[in-house]
């Protein structure tokens, strides 16, 4: 299916005195949402409270299935449905031992959108397409984006290395326009975006929507430990570190005792097993126990831009207003 490329339409509307900005792009049309803002399917972080709140606020909330068992995912989907009638999605981590079962749960529960990470979802495409699930793989290279288009993905998320968690090599600034040039399906930009300026910039690069993670971690509806949220609020521009480059699985987190030890050992040429022992269960430590010293505080470089806690609705409203201001407001001298 060839999708015609149109410019994003941003309109201001007055509703009972307050001006509300409308944003219409191929992504809002494809997903049936108000704003082309997608909340990333972060492992352990993106559960149903957060996903439902983002969808209610007009974006697309996503439940992160990570390595969780299928029963947990089904329960999460059912709970999200009770909280919102609007579309939401599920992110499948394709290396999960439960990926096959979760792929089926998505169809059975009639989930509207699926995003995929850590590989290629080709073997599930037919099943999802028949069930009219919109499929949006997360990619970190042009080659994978092309491959996803060929197997009939509806859109792709082009995620730059500024993102948190498992990352690729290319930056958002360079990856997004190259993916935009390489495929005809709409591209969603991710990595490093945390405010209206970032969203406006993503549109300028040719994206039709954005996916954000870090900014949503600190929202009130997000159930992670307060310590984790506080670390993100506190983080500055240089507080982001990448561990695991030596074993081919780079992961971006906020720096702490764990990253210090890890990077030191990595430099000394420690074995894969020894390094893995340092991060094993680290995300759970951060999210559930609030252990900010030894846990994996997964967050993107945008943590430095995230400075206050608010509800998802307030955040999305702020993002939309900020985007409108950037795109409408002149960035040049008169």
């Amino acid at each position, binding site marked *: 299916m060839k999708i015609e490329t149109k410019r994003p339409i941003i309109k201001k509307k007055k509703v009972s005195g307050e001006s509300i900005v409308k944003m219409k792009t191929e992504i809002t049309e494809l997903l049936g949402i108000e704003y082309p803002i997608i909340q990333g399917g972060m492992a352990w972080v993106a559960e149903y409270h957060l996903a439902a709140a983002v969808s209610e606020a007009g974006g697309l909330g996503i439940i992160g299935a990570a390595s969780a068992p299928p029963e947990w995912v089904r329960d999460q989907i059912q709970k999200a449905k009770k909280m919102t009638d609007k579309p939401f999605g599920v992110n499948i981590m394709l290396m999960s031992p439960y990926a096959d079962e979760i792929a089926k749960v998505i169809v059975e529960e009639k989930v509207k959108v699926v995003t995929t990470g850590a590989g290629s979802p080709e073997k599930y495409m037919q099943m999802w397409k028949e069930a009219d699930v919109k499929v949006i793989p997360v990619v970190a*290279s042009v*080659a994978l984006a092309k491959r996803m288009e060929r197997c009939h993905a509806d859109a792709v998320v082009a995620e730059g290395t500024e993102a948190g968690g498992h990352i690729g090599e290319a930056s958002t600034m360079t990856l997004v326009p190259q993916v935009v040039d390489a495929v005809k399906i709409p591209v969603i930009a991710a990595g490093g975006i945390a405010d209206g300026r970032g969203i406006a910039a993503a549109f300028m690069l040719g994206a039709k929507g954005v996916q954000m993670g870090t900014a949503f971690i600190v929202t009130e509806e997000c159930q992670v430990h307060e310590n984790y949220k506080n670390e993100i609020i506190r983080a500055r521009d240089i507080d982001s570190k990448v561990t695991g480059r030596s074993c*081919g699985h780079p992961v971006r987190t906020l720096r702490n005792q764990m990253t210090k030890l890890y990077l030191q050992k990595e430099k000394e040429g420690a074995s894969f097993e020894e390094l893995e022992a340092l991060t094993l269960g680290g995300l759970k430590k951060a999210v559930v126990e609030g252990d900010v010293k030894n846990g994996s505080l997964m967050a993107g470089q945008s943590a430095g831009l995230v400075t206050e806690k608010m509800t998802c609705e307030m955040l999305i409203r702020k993002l939309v207003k900020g985007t409108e201001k950037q795109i409408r407001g002149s960035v040049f001298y008169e």
Partner: protein
Amino acid sequence: MTERMKEIVAEALNVEIETLKEDTSFKEDLGADSLDLFELVMAFEEEFGVEILSEDLEKITTIKDAAAYMEAHKE
């Protein structure tokens, strides 16, 4: 075919073609990560006009494997 394949590998993974042997492993010997592997697969497909199914990706770990796959699946 093996020679052409070596050229593709050398270019995609930025290694000297002289160092490549039939049993050179993309991952172990050349340090290819998952992004590199997709790069390779897309280049093979383009060159040889063969579609490599995703479930077969894991089976193709060396130049020899790739050549055998292409041979078996070409029209």
